[in-house]
């Protein structure tokens, strides 16, 4: 077996056999799936049933407010002194302020803090009922108003692909998801590479190894070995999380997570309106399968997967080689700080720019960052998924990334081979620069 392969094999097997790997592999998805389910469950549970007393001295509430199983409304035209409210079984008192029709304001007094679900239901009901009262005052037919109020529904199309509706934003989200995944992976496993290098240096194992293998082989073996550990873990996570979520959903019953219901209960009016608007066309077809199919059809899946793999691997190689160089240069974890910051900064910028790219793919910052190799993996991912990157731009960005990662790996290799054998020296940037020029 060749030496680099032997090193990769050791890095892989020793890590995969660690109890912590097994624990993380099983616990990770459990935590993620459990977290999703727990949040959905907790969100749907309201511990206290609220009896809401609405003080409506001006008599603007013309129709009954809708109760839910957690919120019941009671309306009274008289003011309630605080002491009487406190002694009453009501948990919330709402005072509609004077002149509520022209200046819609209300004060809410509670005994226990109501949840956001309860709050938004109250807000929603008051909005509707006051709107109705105002329509009546202006002598407008509510049904006519509903017809008038219809918001403009804009569907966008790419002129090159007339006939298909363009879901650029949704597609960008897919790209962002891939980019974010990449960010997490590169960071998690890049830091593991750094730790591994530091461990070898602190243990002085490296002194023994270096007489049989070249430093570069050692560095690349570690980087590749850890990448394989990461791939294995992620594949297992996807499989386990997928299984758990499917099982969990079918046990708890999927109907509870119907988005329109969630929207009615929980979201602010604007978001709800938007969501409901989006739900409308889907309402007939039961679920939004058509739209999902449309989005998926529009995303060039083979291209996205190929770019994902390419940027994933090259981005990981770029960052992990730099982190390996840092690990080799320092004596202890605390010394890594000053070198970590400049390496992590571009990644954080990349994530921010990728978010901008979802909203505004043509922004110059997005275009530039999709070329700069330190940010391009994440940002270009969004652009490719959106279909907003011409082929030449994609190829240029890829080319630049390859050239840069070859460059950084070479630089890292030079720092590494000096760093691993250097102890007890406070390392500065200048010092690192000098190491580059030491003769083999």
């Amino acid at each position: 077996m060749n030496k680099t392969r032997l090193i990769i094999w050791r890095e892989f097997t020793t890590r995969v056999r660690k109890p912590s790997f097994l624990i993380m592999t099983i616990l990770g998805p459990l935590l993620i799936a459990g977290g999703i389910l727990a949040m959905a469950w907790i969100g749907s549970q309201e511990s206290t049933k609220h009896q809401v007393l609405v003080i409506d001295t001006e008599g603007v509430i013309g129709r009954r407010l809708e109760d839910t199983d957690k919120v019941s409304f009671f309306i009274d035209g008289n003011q309630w002194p605080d002491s009487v409210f406190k002694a009453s079984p009501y948990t919330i008192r709402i005072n509609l302020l004077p002149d509520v029709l022209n200046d819609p304001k209300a004060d809410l007094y509670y005994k226990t803090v109501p949840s956001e679900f309860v709050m938004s239901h109250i807000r929603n009901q008051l909005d509707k009922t006051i709107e109705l009262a105002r329509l009546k005052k202006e002598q407008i037919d509510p049904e006519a108003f509903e017809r008038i109020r219809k918001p403009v529904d804009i569907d966008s199309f790419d002129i090159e692909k007339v006939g298909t509706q363009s879901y650029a934003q949704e597609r960008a989200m897919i790209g962002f998801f891939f980019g974010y995944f990449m960010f997490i992976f590169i960071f998690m496993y890049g830091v593991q590479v750094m730790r591994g290098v530091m461990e070898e240096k602190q243990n002085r194992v490296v002194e023994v190894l270096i007489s049989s293998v070249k430093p570069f082989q050692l560095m690349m073996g570690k980087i590749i070995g850890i990448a394989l550990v990461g791939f294995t873990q992620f594949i297992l996570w996807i499989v386990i999380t997928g299984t758990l979520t499917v099982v969990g959903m079918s046990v708890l019953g999927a109907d509870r997570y119907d988005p329109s219901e969630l929207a009615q209960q929980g979201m602010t009016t604007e978001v709800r309106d938007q969501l409901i608007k989006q739900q409308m066309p889907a309402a007939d077809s039961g679920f939004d399968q058509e739209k999902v199919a449309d989005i998926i059809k529009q995303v060039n899946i083979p291209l996205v997967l190929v770019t994902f793999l390419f940027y994933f691997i090259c981005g990981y190689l770029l960052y992990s080689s730099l982190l390996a160089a840092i690990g080799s240069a320092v004596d202890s974890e605390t010394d890594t700080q000053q070198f970590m910051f400049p390496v992590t900064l571009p990644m954080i910028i990349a994530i921010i720019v990728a978010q901008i790219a979802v909203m505004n793919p043509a922004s110059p910052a997005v275009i530039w960052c999709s070329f700069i190799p330190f940010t391009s993996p994440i940002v270009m991912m969004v652009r490719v998924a959106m279909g907003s990157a011409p082929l030449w731009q994609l190829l240029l960005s890829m080319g630049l990334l390859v050239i840069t990662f070859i460059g950084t790996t070479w630089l890292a290799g030079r720092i590494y081979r000096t760093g691993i054998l250097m102890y007890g020296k406070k390392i500065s940037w200048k010092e690192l620069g000098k190491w580059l020029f030491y003769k083999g």
Partner: protein
Amino acid sequence: MLQVEGVSKRFGDFTALDGITMDVPPGQVFGLLGPNGAGKTTLIRIITRITGPDEGRVLLDGKPMRDADVARMGYLPEERGLYKKMKVGEQALYLARLKGLTKADATKRLKAWFERWGIDGWWNKKVEELSKGMAQKVQFITTVLHEPKLIILDEPFSGFDPINADLIRNEIIRLRNEGVTVMLSTHSMPSVEELCDNIGLIDKARLMLHGNVKEIRKQYATNTYRIEYDGNRVALGNALSFTGELVGAEDRDDHHMARVRIAKGSTVNDVLRQLLPTVAIHGVQEEVPRMHDIFIRAVSEHQPENMVVGMTE
């Protein structure tokens, strides 16, 4: 076997090695001596091709060394460690395979070594369960397992108790008897006298002494003899007259010893001739300087101007 020709190495402004030329003859034990920070480890790293020289070259069997030659060497570094979480057997196997042995071959040889040293019980232990000395034994085995023709040991005895130090010493002698060339760096001067045929002494990046141990010791001899006698010390001193000088004396009960430095132009026979009528001679022995003293003399003659920070020492 191994020739170092005019090797220099600089790290920025700091000169680690300055024109070192030395010869390590085959089938012998060569001692690389020098105070901390002298450049020994740097020289060893150049020989083992971990780093390259700025000037000069290293020849193996008369030919410039190539990367492939590293497989014919076994190197035990001064600062040595093992992966703490790995099992002993697995780790030894890994190191052996990195040296180019096949899995089957490495397993067979390792089992044999472990049996010979009575440590077969360690195979499935984790390295972190071993003491420092135990770990060093494993490291020694992995250094010589692939039967290299040249073995380089940096401070092989450090961290060993006397029993295990003897074990290692005997292994070194056994290897040398089998025709292996051994180069070792050590601060233990008695081991140098006992083991080394030749030495090279480096100080402040320069080679200060180089050659056969016996000859060097002779060269450093001050022509001083220890004479055991019976009689009066003052009379002995007077009797010496111009043939020698009394430089020291020890009197214990009935046992007297005088250290006499023989004057230029005289021989030990002249001295004895002078003394015989005065005192009864029981024994005469030349004082051969110990390596310890030679080391100190060689290094202090070449005084440090300022403190030097080396790579690892």
